[in-house]
């Protein structure tokens, strides 16, 4: 563990990503207790104001404080990202592991099903789902999670198949262990690195997807603040009050970049072979 921490602290992109993500998390936690203003407090008299000492990042078309909205909006982003990745991780890894454990028709069935669902872009899946279930945060989590399942299934199956070809798995087989048991005890722990990396990257994708869905009006519904919806509202006033688009855009970009940098950094740190090659 200590060598892991040492390697991690040596890695610049991991450090930058870590700081950005930590910032995102602390802002979300802080917003649970304190925001400069109430993110839903309307003050029409002070609408569309630029950044000032009173409203650091300005106000929107209803006079709401942009900083406060951004801060509470981060909660939604994190919750959606976390839950969507969890859904994808749990179901996808289970399916991928099952495919590589039993091979044959089980593998064919699972992989063809994931090919099928991967053929639909995330937005189409989400629009389809919200058309059936109605828009909302829970349904956008479901939509993004559903989209993550085949991605995790493919990654898991690929990495697990490679692990099955390793000598220690063969050695475990000569001890008389069943295939499912070998998958759980030997294969999954050895591919966890690849899965963690994929999870952080898909976390970023999920934040982006949530913003996109809210932008389209399919995700989080008013009055709950969300970054995507802030961007959507900002459209009309881009010429008048560009800060309304800039700050949520920056928040999304920085969060996604932070998570991507963590993903890249973890890949290097968790895979010593790759790190040495660089």
């Amino acid at each position: 563990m200590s060598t892991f921490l040492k390697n991690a602290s040596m890695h610049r992109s991991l450090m930058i990503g870590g700081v950005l993500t930590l910032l995102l998390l602390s802002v979300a936690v802080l917003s649970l207790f304190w925001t400069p203003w109430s993110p839903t407090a309307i003050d029409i008299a002070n609408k569309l104001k630029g950044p000032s000492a009173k409203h650091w990042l300005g106000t929107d078309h209803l006079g709401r404080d942009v900083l406060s909205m951004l801060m509470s909006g981060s909660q939604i982003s994190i919750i959606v990202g976390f839950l969507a990745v969890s859904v994808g991780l749990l179901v996808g890894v289970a399916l991928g592991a099952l495919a590589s454990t039993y091979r044959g028709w089980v593998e064919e069935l699972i992989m063809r099903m994931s090919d099928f669902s991967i053929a639909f872009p995330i937005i189409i899946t989400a629009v389809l789902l919200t058309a059936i279930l109605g828009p909302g945060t829970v349904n956008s989590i479901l939509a993004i999670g559903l989209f993550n399942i085949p991605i995790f299934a493919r990654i898991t199956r690929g990495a697990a198949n490679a692990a099955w070809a390793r000598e220690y798995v063969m050695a475990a087989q000569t001890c008389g262990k069943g295939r499912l048991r070998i998958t759980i005890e030997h294969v999954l722990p050895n591919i966890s690195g690849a899965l963690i990396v994929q999870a952080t990257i898909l976390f970023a994708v999920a934040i982006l997807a949530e913003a996109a869905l809210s932008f389209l009006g399919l995700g989080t519904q008013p009055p709950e603040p969300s970054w995507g919806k802030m961007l959507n509202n900002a459209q009309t006033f881009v010429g008048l009050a560009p800060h309304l688009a800039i700050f949520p855009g920056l928040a999304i970009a920085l969060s996604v970049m932070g998570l991507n940098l963590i993903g890249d950094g973890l890949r290097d740190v968790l895979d010593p072979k790759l790190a040495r090659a660089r």
Partner: protein
Amino acid sequence: MLQVKNLNITIAGATRDISIVKDVSFELDAGRSLGVVGESGSGKSMTALALMGLLPGAIRASGSINLAGQELLALSEQEMCSVRGNKVAMIFQEPMTSLNPVQTIGRQVAEPLVLHKAMTRTAAREETIRLLDRVGIPDAARRLDVYPHQLSGGQRQRVMIAIALSCSPNVLVADEPTTALDVTVQRQILDLLRELVSETRMALIIISHDLGVIGEMVDEMLVMYGGSVVERGHADQVFAKPAHPYTSRLIEAIPRFGMPRSERLKTIPGTMPEMGSEMKACIFAGRCDLVYADCLEAPPPFVSVDDAHVAACIRAGRVMETTQ
């Protein structure tokens, strides 16, 4: 105790089946050791995997593998799981990669005990310390919680042997157990294996392309070429008087200590016939310098040249005479 009869291994091909091991037969008693030699692709590792019931997907074994009255080829995968690691165990060529890098060695050695002997974790832990101690891991009790990367190659191979021994198997299959180790460690591991065979009365099958290893380790040997057994007999007899031209050439090809520098190392010209090529002639005919017209007519039968010493060569007697 272990009887292998007419073991054939085939790969199911798109148009026809490709035969990679043909009619391998041998017997092995408890406490005896058998060496299987042959070059890459001679089918020796496939034979070992067939014994473990671990042939990959499209590869099928037929014939008979009888272990202490149990027909292994007839067992279901589930039944085979209770045999593997329990009655037959195996160690591999690469100790560096044969242990799970993310589990402690204590856990990995204890695993078969919990699995087959239904031991509790605590009892298995005690037994693990005894096993690690037996295979020569110093300070075994403290090494239980060590991860594989903290051990040297020789120590890892010792751990592999401890895992293989844990359930006192009837047969231990060692596939090139010392190829990846340096010479001094190689010697220690071979000595350990030899001690364990005489101590536990298990049967040992060593697969190697190194005649030196085979020569000093085993009671009987099997020489394989192109998927077939070409010679079988007591190791001493085979080494002293090889009866198949291939064995004879293999032995001549071993570099001798103190041979003059001007002398070139002997080789066997040519390459092994392609896998699955249908053989009407003797399989070695293409590389043999004793080839006669009738060698090309039909595959040669086994010729008995001595007590329990047979060779698949119609000139077996002549080969024996010509070797010095």
